[in-house]
């Protein structure tokens, strides 16, 4: 005779079954298939069955010049955009806390984050237009020469970095701002009563208290930047040359728009996944997030 606990377990199993099926069908199976395909030569345009090639797709990554330049730009973005976003996000959160019009400012600052990247991309492409773009018009007010934002290596890279900073600094701000709101005011006030300056209270009390949130924002932004695609696709399409060719954009080109090379695109994706996983784990360990967040 089945026990009450046993029938409860069965009921629970059947209740989560639909979700489990969906999870396996939409996540586990495609992921396993991607790993499988990464060891095969399979192109949608060749009309041939997948052919097992072992590690050949992975070896190809190291020979591929475009893959190398994609890594270079992704690293540039990581090194330039993420620290800027973190610093600006923290700075803005501190600067506008408890100021007049805080609510209005807070809401308007979040607008870039809420705009779909594709729409933002179209808007920025117009802003960067060489002849009619407002950015060059603004520069001309200071007698500065027109800049080819999409036609020179340096400015195209700078352009993408600026867009990323514009769009995602509000995200960092939001996290830090929420953290600041959660700090009990009496701790800060007590330190001020004890003679600490405003700077010391910020440096020795508030910053350490929101430190875990800074690390969380950092990890999320690192992962996001490694996956950057939409802005590159909409604004520069990776150019000029290979100046703004991000790694994710390259995967898209190989797998979908230019190559239909499912095997090679799968290998590129696995490498990206490994890098993201290793980097995220490294950061979690290095920043002692497990201890801080009591994970």
């Amino acid at each position: 005779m089945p026990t009450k606990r046993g029938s409860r377990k069965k009921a629970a199993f059947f209740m989560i079954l639909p979700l489990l099926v969906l999870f396996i069908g939409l996540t586990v199976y495609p992921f396993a298939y991607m790993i499988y395909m990464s060891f095969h030569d399979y192109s949608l345009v060749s009309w041939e069955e997948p052919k097992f090639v072992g590690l050949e797709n992975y070896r190809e990554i190291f020979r591929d010049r475009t893959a190398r330049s994609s890594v270079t730009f992704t690293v540039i973005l990581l090194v330039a955009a993420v620290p800027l976003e973190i610093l600006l996000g923290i700075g803005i959160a501190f600067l506008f806390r408890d100021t007049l019009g805080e609510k209005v400012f807070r809401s308007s600052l979040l607008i870039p984050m809420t705009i779909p990247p594709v729409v933002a991309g179209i808007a920025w492409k117009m802003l960067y237009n060489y002849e009619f773009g407002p950015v060059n018009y603004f520069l001309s007010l200071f007698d500065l020469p027109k800049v080819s934002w999409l036609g020179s290596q340096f400015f195209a890279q700078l352009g993408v970095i600026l867009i990323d900073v514009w769009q995602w600094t509000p995200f960092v701000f939001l996290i830090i701002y929420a953290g600041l709101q959660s700090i009990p005011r009496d701790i800060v006030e007590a330190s001020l009563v004890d003679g600490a300056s405003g700077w010391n209270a910020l440096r020795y009390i508030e910053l350490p208290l929101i430190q875990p949130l800074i690390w969380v924002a950092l990890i999320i932004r690192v992962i996001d930047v490694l996956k950057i695609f939409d802005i590159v696709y909409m604004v520069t399409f990776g150019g000029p040359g290979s100046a703004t060719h991000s790694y994710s954009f390259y995967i898209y080109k190989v797998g979908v728009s230019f190559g239909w090379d499912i095997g090679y695109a799968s290998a590129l994706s696995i490498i990206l996944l490994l890098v993201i996983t290793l980097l995220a784990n490294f950061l979690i360990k290095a920043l002692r997030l497990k201890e801080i967040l009591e994970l």
Partner: protein
Amino acid sequence: MRKLCLLLIVGMLSLFGLGVALTAELDVWSSPDNADALYELAQDFMKQHPEVKVKVTPLSWEVLYPRILQDISIKSGTFDVATWDLMTAGAIAPGFLDLEAFAEANPELVDPDFDDDDFLPTAKHVYGYWQDKRIGYPFYGAAMFFFYRKDLFEDEALRANFKAEYGKELKVPKSWEEAKDIAKFFTKKFNPDSPTEYGISLMFPRTHTLFYMYLNFFGPYRRSPSGVEKFGEVDLDWGDYFTADYQPAFNSEEGVKAIQDMIDLMEYSPDPLGSDYGETLEYFAKGMVAMVPQWTACLASWEGAPDLQPVSDKVGIALMPGGAPVSGGWGIGINDASNNKVEAFQFIQYATSREADKFQWLKYRVGPVRQSVIMDPEVLADSPWLVEAYLPSIEGASHRPRIPEEARLEDILVGTISEILLGQRPNTIETLNLVAEDWIRHLEK
């Protein structure tokens, strides 16, 4: 209760009746540039064939091609008819119906007035065949043209100034060498009296645009008598980038010269590396440039440009300098997995008929593909340039590869040319040899 049952029976019978009346529903996928025309043709077709419902779905190039590939790979038959870009012929061919075999098996379906021989010979192949398989009928003829400011080229004072400075007449350039002088003359930086800011508007971004733009420069070398002697005749499936024995042809002295022509012209153009289709159209529309190589579709966008009014007086259309512009255009074909092949066949015959071809050009500027339409008095009265510029452009066009690997090869070459134009790599045969090696490696894969 009885009334309810009666109602149900009547309802079911009506539905059944409808089902009998409507024998097929055709799903037609189309690129946006020809969707409006196709939609109107579909309405007319449905009037003639009330038993067929035609649904035209416009899909952007970036979406249309992947969706066609996905659908024909799994043979799901989601669409019945699709327009396909000429470059994709090799990739999609296995999934498209062989129209010649189908027509042979169903002679009663062939429209006696269809006149297959009326199609322009080159158009018939590039928009219709992959190797020997007939995968479509020519639907939208296109090549790039050289648009110029007719009013400026006819201005007596400007002509005199040009002659005084260059010792020759100001006329529409026949070669890129001539174009350089004229572009310089119309660039304010080099000629403060120029009525335009820049001489020419060029689009060399790192997109597929650069792949076809390069061919406007390489094509004339490839197709010159010495080019044909060196590389052999052009194979319409492999295109001008290849030799007659299917080896890359651009890693040559001619390939380097073509890039040099592009570099030489860049200083007379607004932001050539950062501009694409939309930007160059706008520069010309605003009267900032004197010349622009573009597709026929841009004509429609200039109709309302205030700075180009009246368009007939201000915009001239000529054959591309060098005489071998890159081809574009679309064929229309039937999904091999379609369940409505008969109706689809009737529809594509209608959509590519002489009447449809003429209507599409006059109303929607969808390039004609039939000789009789180009020579039609009404069409010639509307667009006299079809004979002097359109016909030689379509028939003498340079072609991109139509082989399945085209997209991958395109990205490899575009990356390197973009780096050369940017000054990151030298414009040498050695640089182009690296691309050729990559191409061969991918073709052998």
